[in-house]
């Protein structure tokens, strides 16, 4: 194998890895409201918005897997990456053939109720949160006690006092149409505070300091 061929082979492997990651991520995707949308496309999840009280369905034909593969690989690789291109083309062809024969994969979550919650205390394997009704803002806030074991592994490190999470209640509907009642806790992930934001807060604090000067001239 010459040097170029070796590089192409590496690129092809990377493309496959990216494709695999993209598929995995798609399977674990979340929309902006923290509601799980399994089997959805990553790029579309970011733009999707949950229609409360209505069934939200996402469809993914196998061609999306190839597209996801392309998203992950082709942006980074050059056009001369022939091996990767060939693999992707092959995947597209295979998937288009399969999609003609197989029903579209469907999965959905019927969202019936959702709260935005803030953790106020943690202890003895349970935690307490103040839950604000997102669908009926006129409803009073509730104090809710959850079992720590109900927080999924990916979110468990986010469980701390002050953490914000979405509590969604509804029906999970599998790709085979099976309905199960479900309650989901999804912790909010926001970009962390940065120096610029903290400096802006300090600047505003300096300005507010003028409020405490008796006559404004001192």
């Amino acid at each position, binding site marked *: 194998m010459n040097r170029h061929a070796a590089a192409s082979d590496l690129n092809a492997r990377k493309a496959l890895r990216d494709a695999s990651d993209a598929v995995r991520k798609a399977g674990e995707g979340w929309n902006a409201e923290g509601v799980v949308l399994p089997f959805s496309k990553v790029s579309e999840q970011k733009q999707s918005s949950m229609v409360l009280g209505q069934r939200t369905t996402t469809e993914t034909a196998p061609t999306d897997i190839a597209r996801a593969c392309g998203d992950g690989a082709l942006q980074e690789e050059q056009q001369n990456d022939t091996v990767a291109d060939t693999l992707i083309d092959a995947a597209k062809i295979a998937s288009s053939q399969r999609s003609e024969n197989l029903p579209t994969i469907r999965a959905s979550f019927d969202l019936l109720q959702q709260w935005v919650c803030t953790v106020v205390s943690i202890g003895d394997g349970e935690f307490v949160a103040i839950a604000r009704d997102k669908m009926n803002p*006129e409803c009073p806030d509730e104090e*809710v006690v959850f079992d720590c074991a109900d927080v999924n592994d990916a979110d468990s490190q986010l469980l701390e006092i*002050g*953490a914000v999470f979405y509590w969604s209640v509804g029906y999970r509907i599998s790709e085979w149409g099976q309905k199960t009642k479900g*309650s989901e806790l999804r912790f909010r992930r*926001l970009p962390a*505070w940065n120096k610029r934001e903290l400096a802006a*807060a300090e600047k505003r604090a300096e300005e507010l300091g*003028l*409020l405490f000067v008796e006559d404004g001239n001192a």
Partner: protein
Amino acid sequence: MATPSPVLEAPPEATEIEVSLFGPGVGECVVLHLGGGFWIVVDSCLDRTTRHPVALEYLRSLEVPVHTALKRLILTHWHDDHIRGAAELLREATEAQLWISGALSSIQFRSLVGLKHPSGGPRGVQEMDELFRIMKSRKAEGAHRAGYNLKLANENTPLVRLAAPHAVEVTSLSPSSESTLLAVAEFARLLPKDAAPVNDIRLGPNDAAVVLHVKVGERSVLLGSDLENRGDPRLGWRAIVDSAERPQDRAEVFKVAHHGSQTGHEPNVWTDMLVPDPCALLTPYRSLITPLPTEKDISRLASLTSKVFLTASPRTKEPPARSRTVEKIVKDSVLGRTVRESTVGHIRLRAPIYGHADWRVELFNGAYQITDVA
């Protein structure tokens, strides 16, 4: 002692002092008439139904001209349950001075308010932000405007001094300097660091809460806010009781501190600062984990005075029912669930400013007197 069928809308006489305690609603609030149409409001809470400040709705129901008659809005601390609706009230009370705890002037607290929280941040901080905006705009209008300056309450600070038509003195008894330092250190701890996750702010202890002593003619009232005891003579209630500079008049009415909790209890307050058998008023704090007052707290209070009044039951309340499916899923998913808010209970005490006639107690919206304690 309680008056049957009281009329809520009946205003007090000009020569009467009134102490009205509201809660829990979304928090608690005290409205005081200091005689001669001079009103002050201590803390603010929302009516659960209307979502407007309870104090504003009450004063309007008495046909009090809020913009001129409300002279002080005093916020004892910045926790959600003592500050909600304060900005709306201040906007109406155009001539009222706004008083806050001295600890809140610190740059650490101001930085907390200055943070641009993506989700708006905790409601107590949001409310403070709005109050600061109002005060900034008033300040811009200049010194000719009444109530344009933000005022800071610290230990033994006079908030009101009137000689006529009645002698009135309202004095803040806290926070002590040491309590302020402790609170500022807490604010510094709450401030996020670079790369820290964006979370809501955890409310700390009420070290810097403002306790008020109100003297009108021959009547005295002690408003305990949420101040707790720290077991340190320089902090909390101990600093107040031991102070030689505080007003020495014993109060006939006590708004019990921190919902009657053991941590808010200082025995020497009852022996050194209150008359025997005072009226003790309190609001409950509804919670599954830390409900207040507990049965033990109620027993303790009842052993100290025969006149204990609660604005509402401390028992927790079921949340509003959603659909059957939602209720079933929720029931299977959580370990416990309750609402903290309720219809706002109201205890109203009135008495002539001069003389020693008993206080007239009127109870509205579920407020009640503790009578039987096992």
